[in-house]
């Protein structure tokens, strides 16, 4: 793995995005617009403040999952991946290139959504904004790594898009966003315990409520980061130099 090739890959992915202005606009604006929508649906600042932090973690996860599974599937079907595998570039250069590029996109996305939520929608963040940003970016990288991994099992873009309800929606339902995790039955609670998004949402909620870095927060960060790394390794295992 080399820094030059990782950065070259990240630059290439960002250049691809730059040529697609509509996608850039949607990536930057859609989470913020949804936050605004949510605020007025609740029509209540304190209710909004309770649920908004979780969504700041869910949006980057969900969006990066979707765009990565589609982009990497495209790399597989247009044989650019096969070409790359014949060239002197490591699998990790490619994966980390994706992580850097989409991580940067996630930073912009979260900064805009957070800015709108704090200045206009009345969201209160007790802890550090940097910590919140870090968690949101980790969520994005986790979504990206999962998207990359499952794209190996998609035979078409139709299938790739439908992996979203399969791999992402259950995590969203069970992460404590709708019903606190403690109030779920033991089976659901147990499932929710092994899903990474639960920890991401818990961490982001913790940051908005508590000013200090708590033990829960640290544990959650470690879990999310470890899951992202695990998914990246699984993703690397699906990149093959030789194919049948």
């Amino acid at each position, binding site marked *: 793995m080399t820094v030059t090739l990782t950065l070259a890959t990240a*630059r290439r992915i960002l250049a691809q995005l730059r040529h697609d202005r509509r996608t850039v606009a949607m990536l930057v604006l859609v989470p913020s617009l949804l936050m605004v929508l949510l605020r007025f649906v609740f029509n209540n600042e304190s209710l909004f403040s309770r649920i908004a932090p979780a969504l700041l973690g869910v949006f980057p996860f969900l969006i990066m999952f979707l765009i990565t599974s589609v982009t990497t599937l495209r790399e597989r079907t*247009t*044989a650019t991946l096969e070409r790359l595998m014949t060239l002197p570039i490591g699998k990790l250069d490619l994966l980390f290139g994706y992580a850097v590029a989409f991580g940067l996109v996630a930073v912009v996305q979260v900064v805009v959504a957070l800015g709108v939520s704090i200045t206009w929608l009345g969201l209160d963040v007790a802890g550090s904004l940097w910590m919140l940003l870090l968690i949101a970016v980790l969520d994005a990288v986790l979504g990206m790594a999962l998207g990359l991994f499952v794209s190996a099992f998609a035979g078409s873009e139709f299938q790739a898009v439908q992996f979203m309800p399969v791999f992402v929606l259950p995590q969203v339902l069970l992460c404590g966003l709708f019903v606190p995790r403690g109030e779920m039955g033991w089976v659901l609670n147990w499932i929710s315990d092994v899903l990474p998004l639960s920890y991401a949402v818990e961490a982001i909620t913790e940051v908005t409520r508590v000013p200090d870095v708590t033990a829960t927060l640290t544990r959650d960060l470690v879990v999310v980061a470890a899951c992202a790394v695990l998914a990246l390794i699984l993703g690397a295992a699906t990149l093959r130099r*030789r194919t049948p």
Partner: protein
Amino acid sequence: MADSTTVDVEGLDVSRGGRTVLGSVRLRIAKGQVTGLIGPSGCGKTTLMRAIVGVQVVAVGTVTVLGRPAGDRRLRRRVGYATQSPSIYADLTVAENLRYFATILRAPAGDVRRVITEVDLGDHADTLVSRLSGGQLSRANLAVALLGTPELLVLDEPTVGLDPVLRDDLWSLFHRLAAGGVTLLVSSHVMDEAARCQRLLLMRGGRILADDTPDGLRAATGAADLEQAFLRLIRAKDAVSP
């Protein structure tokens, strides 16, 4: 293996989905020549090329390229490969694509310019690949394979859909590269391109029917043109083993 051999294939079997695509293929490709891989579509040309580049899972047999097993990591900078369907990013410009691949190959700074000129895409360097015509697209795809200093170029149908003048230019380029010591394996399903190769591998049904020079092939079959020579070879083979 002699120094003059770039590619050495021994007893190569490849099957895909239970169907034999290549059956006991044995061949050698000499250094510094343009070798044509000629045969109808579906005869296994692409699979053979993939095996030589080292991206094909092989059942039995050995493929040696530049003295190393095909796909060896040390070969990645020494072998250029252009797939038949373009494998470049449609949402980047021609120059952006080439700059990315040039960085990976650690090619010198002027290389992007050089290959753009070689494939005559100077006017389209800043055009998005998705806006290129079919012929321009296949030339952009070819340009990637020319980056750096490959010693072996494996080009899968690089001249499909090109106008005759451009096709002629590309064949001149191939011969110039060969004269400089580069080995080229170029596949085609049209016979008139076969005459431009120094060596021919005729393929059919996953097997090599003939491995000869164009003149040698004409002499051996007594046919005036290569299309006829190919036909006679097939009929002779079918008569022996129907």
